[in-house]
């Protein structure tokens, strides 16, 4: 059962109309699915925040390791989270090949894409989603800010979607990313137009009956089509079953009714300004964790190799074009500005996670956030010593406040560590093609 906070009404004197009309100050409608329980009993959440198109590394990696390292300029906005943050350096996307698309596809899969078969491998978020996703309405969410159309044509013989997603449900199913915060909100909480609990209950029930009837229909069709055509309908049938499962989970949880305190409201659409857009997507992540709609979210702050224009930062050329600076100081400075901007957005998200109560601790304590990307120096398309930050997870004894340098270990080993914390079997991740060599050491202390 979902309870919604009453919409906050705003009265606004309208100059043109000359009359007072009540306006909703964006309807603050948030279902109350807050579970109870103290630390340890709280669900563990995982977030991957993808930092696209490399970093200027001498502004990123601290000079010394250990706990008394000095923050570099691009990390400076994260100073207030120093205690909860691990800076990891010396990690490689070992399976990465070529520029942008290859390393991007390998980033969460640990596997080199096969151009002949158009396959990669299942990604770490999907391994996790398969195992812990059964407990939530949505098994996982894949978010982004760049529209898929931006990915364009093939690079290095790999189709556009190799740069627009990092999530692979199977070796041949790349998952599209949602970029419209409004549709994320509606996916989480429904496109509801009523605050009446009875109406909401009926709506949920209606959805179940519609899906039930749809299942009957597809079963009927499956008996009448040839063997070859059946797999398409099977795909559809499985997807319907998955939604039905989500509804069952939601209904089972409705015992824990309550209100959630939030200032996040239903977004109207995609804001023009990157900053607003990214912040809204981070808000949606927070909301999804807070209401336990899902525990596995990956969010790309841009396609790998995205040529987004940051006009608001004074950059006239796209990000990707600028990263091919060939040593031009002016271009390097702009790239640094963009990277600094992204650090600031990340810092805001971490602050919000920290400030959000989750049982007796904060949401950040029960969440591991990995922020990183598949390129280090994007000018040279290097996928070694890639930028990697880890936040939170104090409930799993992750010890922040340090810079740890590794000796070319694969990023996949970090994924293994994440799976271990999430109590998820890594068997499916570790195919014979994987570049993983063992759980990354040193995170817990």
């Amino acid at each position: 059962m979902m309870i919604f906070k009453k919409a906050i009404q705003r009265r606004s004197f309208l100059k043109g109309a000359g009359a007072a009309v009540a306006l909703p100050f964006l309807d603050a409608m948030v279902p109350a699915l807050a579970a109870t329980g103290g630390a340890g009993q709280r669900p563990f959440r995982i977030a991957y925040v993808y930092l696209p198109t490399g970093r200027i590394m001498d502004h990123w990696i601290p000079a010394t390791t250990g706990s008394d390292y000095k923050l570099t300029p691009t990390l400076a906005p994260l100073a207030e989270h120093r205690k909860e943050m691990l800076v990891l350096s010396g990690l490689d996307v070992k399976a990465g090949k070529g520029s942008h698309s290859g390393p991007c596809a390998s980033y969460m899969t640990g596997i080199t894409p096969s151009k002949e078969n158009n396959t990669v491998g299942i990604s770490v978020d999907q391994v996790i989603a398969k195992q812990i996703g059964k407990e939530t309405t949505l098994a996982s969410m894949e978010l982004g800010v760049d529209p898929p159309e931006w990915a364009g044509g093939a690079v290095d013989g790999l189709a556009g979607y190799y740069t627009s997603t990092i999530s692979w449900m199977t070796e041949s199913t790349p998952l599209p990313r949602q970029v419209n915060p409004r549709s994320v909100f509606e996916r989480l909480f429904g496109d509801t137009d009523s605050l009446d609990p009875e109406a909401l209950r009926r709506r949920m029930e209606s959805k179940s009956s519609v899906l039930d009837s749809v299942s009957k229909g597809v079963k009927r069709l499956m008996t009448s089509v040839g063997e070859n055509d059946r797999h398409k309908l099977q795909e559809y049938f499985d997807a319907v079953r998955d939604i039905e499962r989500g509804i069952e989970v939601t209904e089972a949880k409705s015992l824990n009714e309550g209100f959630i305190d939030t200032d996040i409201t239903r977004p109207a659409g995609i804001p023009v300004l990157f900053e607003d857009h990214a912040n809204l997507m981070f808000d949606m992540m927070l909301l999804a964790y807070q209401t336990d709609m899902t525990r596995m979210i990956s969010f790309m702050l841009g396609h790998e190799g995205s040529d987004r224009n940051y006009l608001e930062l004074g950059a006239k050329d796209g990000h990707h074009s600028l990263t091919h600076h060939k040593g031009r100081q002016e271009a390097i400075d702009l790239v640094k500005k963009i990277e600094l901007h992204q650090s600031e957005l990340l810092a805001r998200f971490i602050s919000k996670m920290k400030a959000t109560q989750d049982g007796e601790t904060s949401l950040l304590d029960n969440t591991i956030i990995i922020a990183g990307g598949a390129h280090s120096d994007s000018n040279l398309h290097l996928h070694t010593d890639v930028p990697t930050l880890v936040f939170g997870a104090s409930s799993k004894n992750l010890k922040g406040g340090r810079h740890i340098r590794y000796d070319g270990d694969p990023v996949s080993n970090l994924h293994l560590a994440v799976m271990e914390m999430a109590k998820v079997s890594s068997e499916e991740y570790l195919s014979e093609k994987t570049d993983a060599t063992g759980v990354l050491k040193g995170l817990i202390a």
Partner: protein
Amino acid sequence: MESLLSGAAKTYIAKILVLFLLTGSGLVYAQTSTIDASSEASYHRSFLNRYCIACHNETLNTANLMLDRANVDDVSQDPQLWEKVIIKLALRAMPQVGFPIRPTETEYQQMLGYLKSELDTLAKNKVDPGRPTIHRLNRTEYANAIRDLLSLEIDTTSMLPPDNVAEGFDNIAEVLAVSPLLMEQYVLAASKISRLAVGPSSMLPSSEIYTVSEEYLQEQRMNEDLPFGSRGGIAVNHYFPMDGEYNIRIKLARNGEGYIRGMRRENWVDVRLDHERLDVFKVGGEFYGKTGPLFTHSQNPDFAGDADQIGYEFSADKDMEISFPVSAGNHLVAVTFMDDRAKKTGHLTPDLMLLDFANYKGGEAMLDSVVITGPFGETSPGMTPSRERIFTCRPDTGTNQEMCARSILSNLAHRAFRRPVQDVELENLMDLYRKGEKDAGFENGIELAMQRILAGPEFLFRIEKEPANAKPGTVYPLTDLDLASRLSFFLWSSIPDAELLSLAEKGELRKPGILEAQVNRMLADPKADTFIRSFGEQWLALRKIDLAAPQKAVFPAFDGSLRAAMKKELATWFDYMVHEDKSVLDMLTADYTFVNQRLAEHYGIEGIYGDNFRKVTLDTPARAGLLGKAGLLMVTSFNSRTSPVVRGKWVLENMLDMAPPPPPADAFQPELQIQNDEGKALTMKEAMEVHRQNPVCANCHKMMEPIGLALENFDGIGTYRDHYEDANTSVDSSGILFDNAEFRDTNEFKDRLLKHSDRFVHTIVTKLMTYALGRKLEYFDQPVIRDIISKSESDNYTWSSLILGVIESTPFQYRRTPL
């Protein structure tokens, strides 16, 4: 170099070196000038021996082709291989340029004639129409089907993710997958659409935001929906879900630091609903102290301005909202600036883009976004076209209610499923109706059943009926109903209308003359615009025009208006040719196009004023035909320069159906060298020559690059040029085409290309068929294509004759069971 090349590449280079040795030695070839007819081997075998097997033999296996082993005297052993050979010979692209000997024209024709007639005969005796798999409606088809089924015009593209693309189109059944996310979005869309179509009995206000791309400087009238004498702004066709009160909130564009642009002077913002003025707002030109500098750089604030004035410049648009009553349905909302400035003769070049525009607060005020919120106050569902369409009857008593619901739902399902509805299906729908009716009345019941229709597999999938118990590989004609669906999804990207459906149900679709009459009717219908948009945009890469990002530093002349004009030109041009039923060959030669003022200036055409597109005759031959269109020239360039490789590849792939293979795995892609070792700037041609020195790449690149270099007279946004700006050198667009023909410039190149117009027609039919069938074409489709083309010859390859040819072909009308 050693370390940069993979093992595979090294082997490849070794092969090439062997090839050079062989051809260099001259030992392989007899010194006679024609094929030796006295030899034991057949003529065709001799042809291969003489011209092909030096490279395509068992040892070298160049391009995986072993013509020494293939049996040319019995093509039935490997028709696929011989279809490949036909492509290369038809284009005279083999033997490659530089090979010491070439067949005579007679020899080419003789060899081609032999192969084609053998393969065509073979195909006649063994028909294979192929087997498109179950086809999920793609996003465009879904939106159109909703429009045609429910008379509902809303933007459904934001409800569904874009579809995967294969073979250059987004309607290829094989890759139209269903993921859990997609399914959720279908269910959500079905619920939203049903509610909007039926008309909600009540709803909470919600907001829709419409933003203006910051690429527009908003100095001109933006489009034909905006009033004359206006500049900038936006016009949106908004769907108002209920009768009620709505609110429009206007936000002006700000610079990087939050200052509203253009606040030094008064601006008048005109707000209209269906062309009628609702209100005018005055904004700007007020002073509450001293204003700061025009470039508001926060790092260097000598004087930022008085606080009150800054406050005003940050929030002058805060009261720009208006509320008004409106009836349910679509209405045109226009928000624009009244243009009180002296009329300018030309458009303004966006010089500002060169300056520090992000920190500039002067210039003209611009619109950032319009937010429409509602409904408020007394609301009612109203009478929308959707409601009229759906509620064909109204219940008056309890008993009538069921009958009325049954009639409404069977009508809807019939259209949505594109076939008669089975009893069990209708009963399932009625079950849902009853449930919904019990909860909240008659309309709610209809809405619930409609959700089921729209989310259901019968609507979302095109499933073609198969004969019961047919043996594997059986070829069977489609039912008339399935044929009607193929037709309407091909020409309308939507469900069949009542007329088409009824002809199919009566079994009359295949009667003499009926099919052709239907095709003509359908092409004349405005719904065929989708064919232009969907097929044309994808084939001509128009969708990429929206995504191109020319660097402002290199192309200061580029802005949003030019982008829009480029797209509109190609779309209008293509639309004209299809609707006027021109020969497809006009695409190569047409000396007319469509321009507005912005594009005319880009093309150097004088005397064109205003934003309307009109037909003009081109007096520069270089602009004639597809290869003179700025939009195409831009999307085949990089964002800072032209790319002869990309342009050449595009032409080969999309005009001659000879896609070069992708570069070998891990081929090192060198940065283009723009200077020689002494630091002297290289022309594009010189740079390409350096770049081509890598033998791994040269084989294919020497086919692509001369084509691209022939178009070097057009820069990265399609501006004509004789000279390079930076190198102060004239453009050299001469070269040698893949068929060994030399050309001196762009115009001669285009003449040479015309010699391959047969391949161009072949390419168009290939694309048409791929799009029509929603599957990848196979070698066994090639004889069909040749047949369509030869039948269309007497019509001089008009669009309608080729489209009809595709529709009447076996692959379109038949299907086979799995092998």
